């Protein structure tokens, strides 16, 4: 239960700030040499990078061979930022001796990250496991038009997709697998 509030006054406030300064400057105690780089809560961004959580929604990656251009992602997208174009083509049969199949070949799969709200609906609705979240976040651009990632760019992100994490005990959700090739 929370304590009843107490009234320590201004001196206590001075104590709090000085204590923090001490902890930042001397993270190992006053007798050890000062090391503010470790004591500080911040990190020096371009030099050190914080690893985001594996589930972090950084950028969407595309596994092109799984995509059937069914348009579900483009339709469910709340702000219409996925553009898909495809044409029909004949693919070799699955089994030897089978019939050739008519499939959709992807001509264009663009995600406009300047519009994207990072909601993840497209990843969720994809029935063929072609879209994955990657926690990468460093893809800012000088021009807004460069935020339109085409399918090659989206496919590059697939390398950075982490494996799905195991769940906490008690969870009854199945752990999915990222369909990475054995070679990669």
């Amino acid at each position, binding site marked *: 239960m929370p304590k009843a509030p107490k009234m320590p006054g*201004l001196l206590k406030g001075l104590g709090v*700030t000085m204590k923090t300064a001490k902890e*930042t400057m001397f993270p190992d105690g006053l007798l050890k040499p000062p090391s503010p780089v470790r*004591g*500080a809560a911040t990190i*020096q961004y371009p030099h050190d990078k914080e690893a985001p959580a594996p589930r972090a929604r950084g950028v969407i990656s595309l596994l092109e061979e799984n995509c059937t251009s069914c348009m579900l992602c483009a339709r469910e997208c709340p702000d219409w930022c996925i553009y898909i174009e495809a044409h029909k083509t004949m693919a070799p049969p699955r089994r030897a001796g089978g019939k050739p199949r008519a499939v959709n070949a992807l001509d264009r799969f663009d995600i406009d990250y300047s519009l994207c709200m990072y909601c993840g609906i497209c990843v969720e609705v994809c029935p063929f496991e072609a879209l994955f979240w990657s926690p990468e976040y460093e893809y800012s651009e000088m021009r807004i038009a460069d935020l339109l990632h085409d399918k090659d760019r989206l496919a590059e992100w697939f390398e950075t997709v982490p494996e799905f994490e195991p769940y906490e005990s008690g969870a009854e959700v199945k752990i999915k697998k990222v369909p990475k090739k054995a070679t990669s």
Partner: protein
Amino acid sequence: MNPFLALDPSYWQVTTLKGIMALVVVPTGAAIIVFVFLFKFVSFMHSRLGPMEAGPHGSLQLIAEAGKFIQKEDIAPDAADKRIFKLAPLIVMASTFLIYVVIPAGPNAVLVDLPTGIYYVLAVSSLSVIGVLMAGWASANKYALLGGLRAGGQLIAYELPMVLAVLGVVIQAGTLNLQQIVLAQSGGEIFGFSGLGNPYILTQFVALVIFMITIQAELTQTPFDMPVAESELVAGYQVEYTGVRFLLFFLAEFSTAFGFSAIAATLFLGGWAVPAAWDIPTVAMHFAGPAILLGKTMIFCLFIFWVRFSFPRLREDQLQKFAWKVLIPIALANIMVTAVLKVAF
């Protein structure tokens, strides 16, 4: 003026040297405290690192900042009273320079050894009020006006307790000359024990506390920073300034902080001197004096910034009440007690 190390410089040589000294010391003082306290120590209090990129641990950051300000366009608002608007930061800066004139940093290292030194300091430090009021009025901005008026009221209200606090020291030392006050502390004794001299921090602790509070107000630092209150008045009287003129305000604020800390060190910690009982030769003090003064000054600077970044801000009416109803009566009582004890012993 005594010859320094057996040299006999002429008047103009001395004057030039002093001028250069003043031009060097004032920005350096500001630079030291801005880097050590505003950039680094405060960052540590916030558990962050502060500037790290320019130079080792960001030590050249200030040069980068100054360069940035100098590059910026010097803008004056259309409706502003341009001449006064441009003059205001110079007046504030001038007041800062004038404070440094009488601070002794060694047996001879004082620009002008005025017999009424401390009186002079208190007088010129209030000059900055005029600059601030000019800035506030001439900016033709409502925030600036409110800030300027607040600054005017506040600086005047805190001038009085500051003078009264200093009077206690003056009574005890028996002189207005800062050099004499330093010597009085260094040669003094406490109940016959002279190993520490008699720094007035011991006998005039009340005066020290009042003095520190008033310089906090005088410098418009939190908890008395209503004139520049960034969350209410955005930046008060500085709101319309950019570039070099803003840099001047900035520099003036921090060199005044440094100057006032030096005065506090002189008045209450014995200034550049060490206790006379330690028997350090005067020649050594010529060199050690400035360093000792710097060290003592830094202690007070630390307090200024520590308080500044720990406390919230008071309201203007509360500040006035605090000055007139609390500080002045205490300061008066302190003077009376000091005077009585002075006569008694």
